[in-house]
């Protein structure tokens, strides 16, 4: 618990942790929703926020509070699928390319570079158009995972390259340690903070991209996410009609989510930074 105590000394961690907890709670509440979020007309239309409808209702006759709960949950699910999967790819590619080097490393880095230089966004849009019919949370997560790993693979590779030159690598080899164990035991403690902070950053990227794709109408509009919520509000011209709560809800939630993820990543990676960890171990 010392870890949490140390982390709670950082105000950024406190703020982001609180926001995330609140958003998670909201997402969990969706399990107890009285309405099916895909159905229309389960509530009166266009009502301002009130005690009965906390976030108001929209022109489709849906309670925005419950819509928001589903949206946050689904956006987080997409982000988790995409970010975790792309971390696995990034770690594998980065570590193999860094430790093995040679021809294998060159080939892997070539692929990673290809993903870096191609116009990612256009290709994602094109692919999204192709699979639009079968687009659900998982396919969207997979699609974004396939494109979100290349830069982080490169970062991990460069870290492994420098760790490989450190004396303890040679000590481990002379101790008879095999490659897999060497990477797991010796390098992982240094790489974990990096993986962690890129995981959170990648989640933020995925959420942002999902909003963009929804905005372009390239996802399944029936599934409530932060992006589709915003898209519906705009297509019903909520601003012009004065239904500000319809458009403010997804925007505020997205901003909160971004801020929380960003500060969480900053404060945790500062805490896990090997340099400060060595100081703590030494103290």
């Amino acid at each position: 618990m010392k870890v949490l105590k140390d982390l709670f000394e950082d105000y950024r961690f406190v703020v982001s942790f609180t926001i995330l907890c609140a958003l998670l709670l909201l997402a969990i509440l969706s399990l107890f929703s009285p309405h099916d979020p895909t159905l229309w007309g389960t509530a009166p239309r266009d009502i301002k926020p009130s005690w009965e409808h906390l976030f108001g209702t929209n022109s489709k006759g849906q309670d925005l509070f419950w819509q928001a709960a589903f949206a946050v949950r689904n956006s987080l699910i997409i982000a988790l699928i995409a970010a975790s999967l792309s971390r696995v790819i990034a770690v594998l590619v980065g570590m193999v390319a860094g430790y093995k080097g040679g021809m294998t490393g060159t080939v892997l880095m070539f692929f990673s570079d290809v993903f870096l230089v191609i116009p990612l966004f256009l290709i994602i849009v094109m692919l999204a158009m192709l699979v639009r019919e079968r687009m659900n949370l998982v396919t969207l997560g997979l699609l974004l995972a396939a494109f979100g790993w290349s830069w982080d693979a490169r970062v991990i590779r460069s870290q492994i390259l420098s760790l490989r030159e450190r004396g303890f690598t040679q000590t481990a080899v002379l101790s008879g340690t095999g490659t897999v164990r060497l990477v797991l035991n010796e390098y992982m403690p240094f790489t974990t903070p990096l993986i962690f902070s890129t995981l959170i950053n990648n989640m933020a990227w995925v959420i942002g991209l999902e909003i963009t794709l929804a905005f372009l109408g390239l996802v399944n509009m029936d599934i409530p996410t932060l992006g589709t919520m915003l898209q519906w509000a705009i297509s019903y011209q909520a601003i012009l009609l004065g239904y500000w709560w319809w458009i403010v809800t997804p925007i505020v939630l997205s901003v909160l989510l971004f801020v929380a993820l960003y500060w969480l990543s900053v404060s945790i990676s500062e805490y896990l930074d090997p340099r400060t960890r060595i100081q703590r171990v030494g103290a």
Partner: protein
Amino acid sequence: MNKPVLRTENLKAFYVLDVHGDQTVVKAVNGVNLHIRENEVYGIAGESGCGKSTLLKTLYGAIEPPLRLMGGKVYYRVVDEELDASRLSAEDKRYLRWEFISYVPQGSMSVHNPVLKLKETFHDFISAHLSGKTREEAFEIAKAWLVELGLPTKILDAYPHQLSGGMKQRVTIALAALLKPKVIICDEPTTALDVVVQRGVVQLLKSIQRELQNSIVLVTHDMGIHANVADRIAIMYAGVIVEEAPAATVFGSPQHPYTRYLINSLPRFGDKSARESAPGNPPLLSNLPGGCPFHPRCPYVLEICKREMPETVALNQNHKAACWLVVEREDGKTP
């Protein structure tokens, strides 16, 4: 006798570190009295983590947090007038630096700006002292000085990466001496250099001293270098000077047990007899033992050593040591 050009009085400088709420005090300089005379090479010897680099920073007045001056004074003797270094204004300090005192920090050879020619980097340093002189005149002075020291002048037009480590180190030292300062402080100038290059650096230090007749404070852990250049040597251990004497005395009849270990453990050519290191490990400056800091490693330890730090005793005019063994012996002599 010469008046000291640089003098300290019970100098104390500690690092105060704060790691996640735990405060650590590193007593790097813990009551040091130095008298550096005019026209001498003063060697300070000690192992890593004994506080010798911190002592130099304090002498030069380069005290930056987390390092804090906790007590004592540093005096510079500028034109027959003794100045308290801690009371100097920033402007005075800037003026005294390079003209009165120069400092060649450890590894300074690798801090040159890689994209500037050496002369440009160098000009940035001394431009404050060259009012009334054009750049070209300044370079002429620098060139003439390099010629005098037997270094090639083309190096001023070179980029740092074009020179070997030894050459960079020699240029750095030569340029630190350009404005003919009264005191030059060198921190480990020969460390990480090859032996043949080390010899070149020592050769340069000697010729600078001969030319300027000034004082050079030379810090290194290498006793061989001290034997070769230093007039007087101070042995530093855990933030204090434990012994100070002319070079021949330090090597000929060392008094402090630590000095003896240091001298006797040095391997010599033509003598393969067994050499012993001091037992144990140097103490952490953040966690010093009570009394004399050497007592846990000392084979002659007395009860009093564990309780009290010995005073520095003068064995004769030039030879001082801080050790209870010496105190007791000297007391026995004078009834």
